[in-house]
């Protein structure tokens, strides 16, 4: 028997096999960190809010997990769950794709909106789920965002929007693009009414969603390491973007160039939100406290 090679092509192949065998570990027990390749015990990972305890890599959180991690003891009530997706372009591949994402995630659409309690205060939340069709915004997402904002204006509640999106759902065509205009217009109303609006960027925060309501918050905070910019990688490659810095379109790049207020690790997210909300509290509340 020949000894296992240390260098060269065969060694590379052997390392690949070894990695794959890790990937093939029984589901639900272990996960390998995509950044540092540390093998993480799933229970530990969950306890750590899906952040790698070695390198701090932030896994993408689903909408339900995100809401759970932010609101007080599950105090959340969904709104507009009855809005259903429409195949607006009558594109024959749309319905099968939609069915596929629904089966994969158990969700009906890419966003959950509703009212939750944070530190005892009612807040309107909108949380995109990147696992559902890359969190793309179509008619339902746009409408839910706008209705959530309108609800906040009517009930004088602050708004927190969590972004996790590849952009506009291109299979909804021009009506999809118009969701950018629609949600931005709603942001104008929000600001007119003096409602506090916080945007939390999470992995990925891209394209049409970033370039609309995702950029219009009073405060914009971001999880570390995430991807954020006007284009997804594939499109940037096609557009032949050159002279790219190392952290191009990462959260750190956004901070360095002045697009976000802070980078906040996941475990500090809720305390940070509480601070920001406290700053926005109405004057009479302060008087009450005094």
């Amino acid at each position, binding site marked *: 028997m020949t000894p296992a090679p240390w260098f060269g092509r065969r060694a590379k192949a052997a390392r690949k096999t070894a990695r794959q065998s890790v990937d093939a570990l029984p589901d639900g027990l272990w996960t390998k960190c995509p950044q540092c390749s540390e093998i993480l015990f799933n229970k530990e990972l969950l306890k750590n809010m899906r952040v790698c305890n070695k390198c701090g890599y932030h896994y993408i959180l689903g909408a339900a997990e995100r809401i759970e991690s932010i609101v007080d003891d599950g105090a959340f009530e969904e709104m507009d769950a*009855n*809005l*259903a*997706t*429409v195949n*607006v*372009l009558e*594109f024959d591949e749309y319905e099968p794709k939609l069915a596929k994402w629904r089966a994969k995630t158990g969700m009906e659409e890419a966003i959950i909106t509703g009212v939750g309690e944070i530190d005892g205060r009612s807040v309107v939340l909108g949380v995109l789920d990147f696992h559902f069709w890359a969190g793309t915004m*179509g*008619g*339902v997402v*746009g*409408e839910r965002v*706008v209705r959530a904002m309108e609800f906040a204006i009517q009930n004088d509640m602050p708004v927190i929007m969590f972004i996790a999106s590849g952009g*506009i759902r*291109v*299979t*909804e*065509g*021009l*009506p*999809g*693009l*118009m*969701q*950018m*205009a*629609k949600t*931005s*217009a*709603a*942001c*104008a*109303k929000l*600001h*007119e009414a003096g409602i506090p609006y916080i945007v939390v960027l999470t992995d990925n925060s891209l*394209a*049409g969603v970033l*370039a*609309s309501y*995702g*950029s*219009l918050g009073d405060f914009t905070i971001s999880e570390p390491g995430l991807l954020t*910019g*006007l*284009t997804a990688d*594939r*499109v*940037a490659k*096609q*557009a032949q*973007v*050159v*002279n*790219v810095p190392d952290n*191009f379109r990462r959260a750190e*790049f956004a901070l360095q*160039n*002045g*697009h976000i207020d802070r980078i906040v690790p996941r475990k500090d997210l809720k305390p940070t939100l509480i601070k920001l909300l406290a700053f926005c509290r109405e004057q009479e509340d302060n008087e009450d406290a005094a």
Partner: protein
Amino acid sequence: MPPSWNILDFEKPIAELDEQIAEIKRLTAESGEDRTEDILALETDRDRLIEQIFANLSAWDKTLLARHPKRPYTLDYVRTIFDDYTELHGDRLFADDPAMVGGIATLDHRQVMFVGQQKGRDIKERGYRNFGSAKPEGYRKALRLMKLAEKFHRPVICFVDTPAADVNVGAEQRGISGAIARNMMEMATLKTPVVVVVIGEGGSGGAIGIALGDRVLMLEHSIYAVIPPEGFAAIVWKDAARGKDGAEVMKVTSEGGRELGLVDEVVKEPLGGAHRNMDLAARNLKAALVKHIDELLEVPIPELLDTRYKKFRGMGAYSEKMI
């Protein structure tokens, strides 16, 4: 340069007839022979041919027309439509963006603010105009000019002609996403009439960044889409070569925009496209602009803003299930 470099495939039969007519005209001019009737007959034939060809154009053909190298660009229209145009430069923050032009203009007796994306005609100008892809400073300049229009109660006219916004490192550094978002938010509540015309390519976020207005018009052979057809094909079928199908599915044409209820009026182009008769194309567009501006100037501002908000508020498709 081969003569066909700026002639589309489906335009070739037309171009051949054009050539024949020109040739006869040249020969008769030399010999003094009168062949007016022949020429007229040929011209009638050619026009019939154009009508036939243009009645059967696919969404992809329209995409090529919208990107036609001879198609009139923003400043070509500006020169013909406005009696006077004084360009204003710069965003007061970083730079002047030649891909986004704007300034004060007079539309007959009306003072208006004009902004629009500008493409380049030759290689040098294309580079200078960045192929009509505006950078953050371009969007900020546009917003600055629109805010001036608001201050002095002048209507705004926006011409959209861009493949997409610029996505290079500099544009990301200076916050292209935020600039586009900000424009839409401000335009939603801009206290003066805004008329938007897609004159060529209405490319995605790059377009919508100056396209939130009281009226949205499209020239007959322009396109308006969430992503270029090639990009759609690359995302949906992992095959950028299927742009033809992508254009069809997305309904990128002016009829598509009307059908989807997102475009208020389609402005007729001359037979064979705007590039065959620039003056007529500009005259048609001017008539449409005058009509819409005059209508909008009659509307009280609160009502104008309310209607504008509701217009965009109502866009997009969803259904409400009973629970």
